[in-house]
Each structure stands twice: as structure tokens, then as C-alpha cells.
């Protein structure tokens, strides 16, 4: 399933190249303060102290298991752990580095939460490259966000009138709220993606997701929909 040819000789050494890891991984004393403050640890079967402890072993097999697990995808990246760590570690930063490596190696497809990287990538990078925003009315559908309530259903049904009432310049020229980002600026974003590995990241996430969809006997659309919607009950602290 995963591209073993692409696997670096040593996963810990690969993590050490990541600037988030350099900033967030110092000597952990395993005090558990990060876990005590962590919103994810209360909700999911998640313990940032254990994650840092595993990484600290430098054991490639354990790190590979981590990269293929649901565990690294439970964090909400709120960075509450950074404030409180008595040794100035950033478990949240370690998580970002682990997720980045998992994405690059295709290991993310081995877990239910990891597979969400496909719909997330399509939503976020689609919005950036098509509109210049991370969130945009054209892709934020009420049907996928019923928690936004009846007021938002009404708002989206009368989008242009409602936004005009709010003082927006929706898809208009010039500055202002929800303006149309000029094409030359969108072209610059695309060039940035091409130069910095953003375009390659999209290709890699799609490639490994397609392979996993085939392995699971699902068409690509069905695979993506399941990743977006399905949640098994194995993740939670009950």
C-alpha cells in the first residue's frame, strides 16, 4: 500500500529536519501537563505525553506505527500544550511534523482519521486556488453544515441579498469583504503552490488515497464521502 521506496532510512532523523519538530521537541520529562490541559485528550483516546514519549525512544518501528495510526490525527492544534509545558516543548508542533511525514509517505491512508486528509485537502486547497480564501460561500454548503442552523439556511438561500445587507462586496471588483480576488493574484498563489511543494502535496494525497480506495474496493467519490462523514465509535473516551 505505502510507497516503501519513498521511505527514508530513519524516520526520527527525517522528523529532525522539520522546523516544527526542531521548535517543539526538546527533552520531555513525561510530566503529563500537556495531557492535562489538552482538549483532545478529554474527548478522544489521546495522550500527547505518550506521543512525545514514543518519539523520544527514536524507535523507527514505534514511530512508523504512530504515523499509520488514528492517534496523531486527534489533536486540534489549539497549542494549549505549548503554554503550559515546563520544558518549553510543543507537543502540538511535534504532531504537525508527524502529520506532515505521514502525508508525505502515504501512511495517512492506514487510519480512519488519517484518510480525512483527502477531503480536507480538496476543501482547503480548492478554496485557496479557486477563490483565494480558505473558506468560501461557494463551497460551504448548508447541507454539509446543518449545525449552522436555520438562520444560515436562510442566509445561504438569499446569499447575495444578505451579504449586500451586511456591507460585503461579494465577488465584486476592488477591496472589501468577500471580494473577487483578481486572477493575477490567484495565478501567484498557484505559482507559490508549484514552487513550494503545495501542488506536489495535493498529488501525493490523491495518489495514495486512490490506491487505498482500490484496496478497500470503493470508487474514489465514495471513499472521499466516507472519509468526510463516517466516524466509528473506537475513538472516544466514554
Amino acid at each position, binding site marked *: 500500500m505505502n510507497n516503501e521506496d519513498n521511505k527514508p532510512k530513519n524516520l526520527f532523523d527525517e522528523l529532525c529536519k*522539520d*522546523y*516544527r519538530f526542531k*521548535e517543539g521537541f526538546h527533552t520531555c520529562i513525561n510530566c503529563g501537563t500537556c495531557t492535562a490541559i489538552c*482538549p*483532545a485528550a*478529554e474527548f*478522544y483516546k489521546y495522550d500527547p505525553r505518550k506521543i512525545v514519549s514514543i518519539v523520544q525512544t527514536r524507535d523507527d518501528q514505534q514511530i512508523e506505527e504512530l504515523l499509520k495510526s488514528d492517534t496523531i490525527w486527534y*489533536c*486540534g*492544534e*489549539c*497549542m*494549549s500544550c*505549548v*503554554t503550559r509545558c515546563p520544558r518549553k516543548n510543543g507537543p502540538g508542533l511535534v504532531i504537525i511534523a508527524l502529520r*506532515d511525514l505521514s502525508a508525505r509517505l502515504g501512511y495517512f491512508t492506514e487510519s480512519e*482519521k488519517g484518510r*480525512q*486528509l483527502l477531503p*480536507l*485537502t480538496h476543501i*482547503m*486547497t480548492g*478554496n485557496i486556488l479557486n477563490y483565494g*480564501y*480558505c*473558506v*468560501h460561500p461557494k463551497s460551504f454548503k448548508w447541507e454539509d453544515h446543518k*449545525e*449552522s442552523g*436555520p*438562520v*444560515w439556511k*436562510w*442566509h445561504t438561500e*438569499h446569499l447575495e*441579498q*444578505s451579504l449586500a*445587507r*451586511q*456591507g*460585503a462586496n461579494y465577488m465584486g471588483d*476592488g*477591496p*472589501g*469583504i*468577500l471580494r473577487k480576488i*483578481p486572477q*493575477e*493574484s490567484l495565478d501567484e498563489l498557484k*505559482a*507559490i*503552490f508549484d514552487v*513550494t511543494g*503545495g501542488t506536489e*502535496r495535493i498529488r501525493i*494525497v490523491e495518489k495514495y488515497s486512490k490506491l487505498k480506495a482500490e484496496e478497500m474496493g470503493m470508487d474514489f467519490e465514495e471513499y472521499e464521502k466516507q472519509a*468526510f*462523514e463516517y466516524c466509528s465509535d473506537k475513538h472516544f473516551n466514554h
Partner: protein
Amino acid sequence: MITQGKQKIWSDYQKEIPDDHWYYVRSCIRQNFFPASEKMFTEITRNVLGKDIYETPHHTTCGGIAYHCDTIPQETVMTIVARQFALMTEAGYENYVPSCITSFGNYCEILETWHEFPELEAKIRENLWKACKREFKKPKYLAHTSDLIYHWRNAIAAKAKYHLVNKETGEPLKIVEHIGCHYAKMFPSKGVGGAEYPYVLAGMIESWGGQVVDYPERRHCCGYGFRQYHMKANRGYSVSNTWKKFESMEPFHPDAIITNCPGCPYFLDRWQYVIAEQTGKTYGKDGFGIPVFTYEELAGLILGYDPWDLGMQLHQVAVEPFLDKIGVEYDPKAKYLGLNKEDIMRPELPKSIKCC
């Protein structure tokens, strides 16, 4: 709130905020969910206070949400930010103010990382030149839009038509402040008041006549969690964190919540609706929720702007009980009218939480 001790912390965490000439960049989430708050920021700063707030249509997302959803590499987000700085440099500004806490945290993290690792900054400059043929200077000052409203809070108070005071009892209204994690949790020195007891919103509440509510889960995340909200499968995480905060603040009977971050007011508002629909529980009086405001909405309210010009019709939790406590004048029939009083119908009413 007991302020003894906190005042010492606050005095240790003050940041220099220039009084004028800011290069302004917008927030992805606020433009979608609280567009009138961004409108009010420029209205108050430019037209009420007479400040120079510059915006170019060519600025884009900073990429912060995509980055924290782990969908773009670090070099990509850094080069998008470098382009934003290039636009500021080309416009002749050196004070940079984003309207978003995720962005603010993103900028703080990137500037700090470049400071620690100059070779990475050099790489990003090279990337930007290759991709866009642009060069940039780093901002001399970086502030969040709430820092500016905080900075001008007393000037706003001096022009206020209303105060955060119960018009019947004369008592200050009890306001919960919610900061947003990326404001100062990573870099406490970058936020007004630091990370543990931030003063940026507390200062506004005090200046405008209200009373800050301290409660156990004051610093807890609203539950956004990036992928934990954007994926339908994960939203239980998000609502559970909001629920934890409301259970913690409920015994203190707050009149309202003021928020700092783009996402937090959306989550604290909408998850109250969901909790009510799922369990029947509401946190305000008489079946209402606790109204949740942006700092521009509260600033606009006390300055006497129409609540519907401030966008409060887009909240799911009704704001009217709070307006009535202050004595704000408003037309209930105008709440859902479009531009030029066009009839664009009304939203359906939720089943459990009371709305007006």
C-alpha cells in the same frame, strides 16, 4: 473578577501598538460568518476615529486554516505570508494588522521561526522571487485587529451612546471574554496581557462599563480544532468542547460573551443551538441562549449603530434580550430585511432555543 495579581501579569505583557497607519488584511472566516464586523472595523477606525487603515484587493488568505488542517506544507504557507508582506512593503506600510487570530498566530509563528532559522527565511525569499518576482520587508509592528480596538477602547468609550450596564438596575452587565487559542498561547508576549489572563477583551469590557466574568474553563478552546470541525465525522469534538465551557460558565449567569477569534463566536453561538436541539438545554434565561458577540459588534452597539447594520441577524442565539438590558433602540421588524428594506423572507425558528 479578582484582579489582584492579574494586574501584575497584565503589566508584564504590554505590547507597543502604534496609533496610526496600518496595513489591513481580512479574515477568511469572518468575511463568511461575520461580514458586518469587518465592515464595522473599518467604519469605526476610519470614520469614527479618523485612522489610516489601508487595504488592497490583491491580498489573499494567509493559508493558516489550510496549514492547521495539515493540507499544505510549511514552505507553502510561509511563501503565501511572504507575498502578503510584499504587498504591504509595496504599499509603503510597516504596521501590519490581520483580522484573524489564526492569521495572527500564523504570522507570529512564521516571524519567530525565521528569527530562529534565518536560512529558512532566505529560502522563502527565494521561493517568493521564483513564484511572484516580489520582495518584502518584515512588518515593524504586528497587531491583531482586537489589539487596535483595545488600544482605542477609551476613545470609543468617550463617544459611546450606551454602556454595558443594565438600564433597570444600573449594575454592570456580566460579560464572559473568550480569547481564541492562537492569540497568545504559543507566544504569550505577543498578546496584550499574556496567555493566562489576557487583557485585550477584559480591557474593552471594563472601559465600556461591563464586568468581566472569571470562570474555571475561561481559557479552554472553543472546540474549533480545524479538522475537528471541517470534517463532518469529527464535529462531536467541537460541540463537546463548547459544552464544557458553557457548563462551566453557567453558574455565573453571564449576560453575554465577547470573542476575539473569527471561529469562536460562530462555534459558541451555533453549538448552543445544537445543544438545545439535542438535549433541550439552554444557558440563558427563559429558554434563550447566551448571546455571543465580536468585539466590533459590541463597540458598534455602544457607539449607537443599528444592531442589524452590525449583522446580529446572522446569529442563531437571539441578541434581543441583551439589547433590551442595555436599552438599545432597534426595530424588530427590520431584523431580516435585505438591502433597501427588501423583503427576503425570514429564517425558520429552531425547535428548542428561543429566538425573536
